[in-house]
């Protein structure tokens, strides 16, 4: 599979949040603004890519029975690195907003899932791009959700006010809005999938009918 295909698969077909429904806790908690979502997305992307690379390198040395704890140690090390980098260099308001969700990257199902399903069975380069794809997919979902939540809830994008005459719906940056916004986006994704399936179904049925007509015409009298 080419690099581009691997990336596309991680971002669209197997999008961790919108299709596979994993990694929901940070998705809802850190999308109060696009800035926070980008920060969380980048942190997760880094941990996912690096742990995928290291696990694919060393997976043959991990005894089969205790491979999960081994993966967790690798992931936790990278999370600690990210935490220390963020404490030192990230803007304080982003660091405070992400709070305990930075150390909680370690229990994000996406990372352990990719380690177990992909990195432990594939080469370094393939795992690198798999991690990049899934990480970018996660970031995309976060940014899309944060875009709608910030637009509706604060009337701004990147803290730049978009509409000032309308009163923003504050609920959308609070907890209930997170659930409703993600539910609506998931509904939209499901609607598009259903429509595509219906179209494919109709196409297949049409083709089948055409074949039937041709075969019945070619039937010897």
């Amino acid at each position: 599979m080419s690099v581009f295909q691997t990336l596309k698969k991680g971002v669209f077909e197997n999008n961790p949040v919108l299709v596979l429904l994993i990694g929901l806790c940070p998705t809802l908690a850190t999308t109060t603004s696009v800035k926070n979502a980008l920060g969380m997305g980048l942190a997760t992307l880094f941990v996912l890519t690096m742990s995928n690379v290291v696990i694919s390198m060393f997976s043959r040395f991990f005894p089969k029975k205790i491979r999960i704890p081994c993966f967790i140690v690798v992931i936790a090390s990278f999370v600690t690195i990210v935490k220390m980098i963020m404490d030192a260099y990230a803007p304080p308001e982003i660091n405070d907003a992400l709070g305990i969700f930075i150390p909680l990257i370690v229990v994000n199902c996406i990372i352990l899932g990719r380690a177990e399903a992909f990195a432990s069975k594939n080469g370094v380069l393939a795992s690198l791009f798999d991690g990049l794809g899934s990480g970018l997919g996660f970031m995309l979902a976060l940014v899309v959700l944060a875009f709608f939540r910030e637009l509706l809830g604060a009337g701004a994008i990147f803290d730049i006010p978009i509409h000032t005459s309308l009163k923003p719906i504050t609920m959308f940056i609070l907890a209930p809005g997170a659930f409703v916004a993600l539910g609506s986006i998931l509904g939209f994704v499901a609607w598009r999938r259903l429509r595509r399936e219906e179209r494919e179904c109709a196409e297949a049925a049409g083709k089948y009918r055409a074949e039937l007509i041709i075969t019945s015409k070619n039937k010897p009298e």
Partner: protein
Amino acid sequence: MSGTEAFIIFFNVLLINNFVLAKFLGLCPFFGVSKRTGDALSMGAAVVFVMFMASLVTAFINWFFLLGHPGNLFYRAMGGDPAAYDMTFLYTIVYILVIAVLVQLVEMALMKLSPPIYRALGIYLPLITTNCAILGVALLNNDFAVEASGFWVYLAKCLIQGLGAGIGFTIAMLLMSGIRERLEYIPVPKPFRGIPISFIVAGIMALAFMGFASMI
């Protein structure tokens, strides 16, 4: 620690800052295992138990091994400057490993000691290792160490928060499973069936739980 303080910690984490509906911790089991009330209750019981145990164990480890203060055992053994023994940057690695080992031990102990409980909770225990609510409660408990006057006060606060968080999680799971059982019979628009409508229901529940905010 006074009774009021304990009461406030308990109800804060139980209703006002409910782990699932206000803090977004433990959403995977919340949506994954809430299809039937029986399953939801078993999962909730397992989470309460593991959260309590994790609060207990991480409180000991934090106080005696990680924090750089006079209570640190390395400092007591070797002397010098207590701040030099500060190993709090290792929180993440130490806590997740301790929780993973703890869950494994609990599973083995239950299998030996109480097969009926093991049959009810067994399949949920491995899932709990990667449940962010457990690590979340352990990390949130760290804040108590700063203000606590002594180990026993700190431990009591941790245990109350662990218990309250677990019971709050169970309440949210039970409510959700009751609603989802009824949702099966309602003509929801096709794209919203299953998970999307559950999210919107959870949003309305979160809105209701926001009403508790002015309780204390």
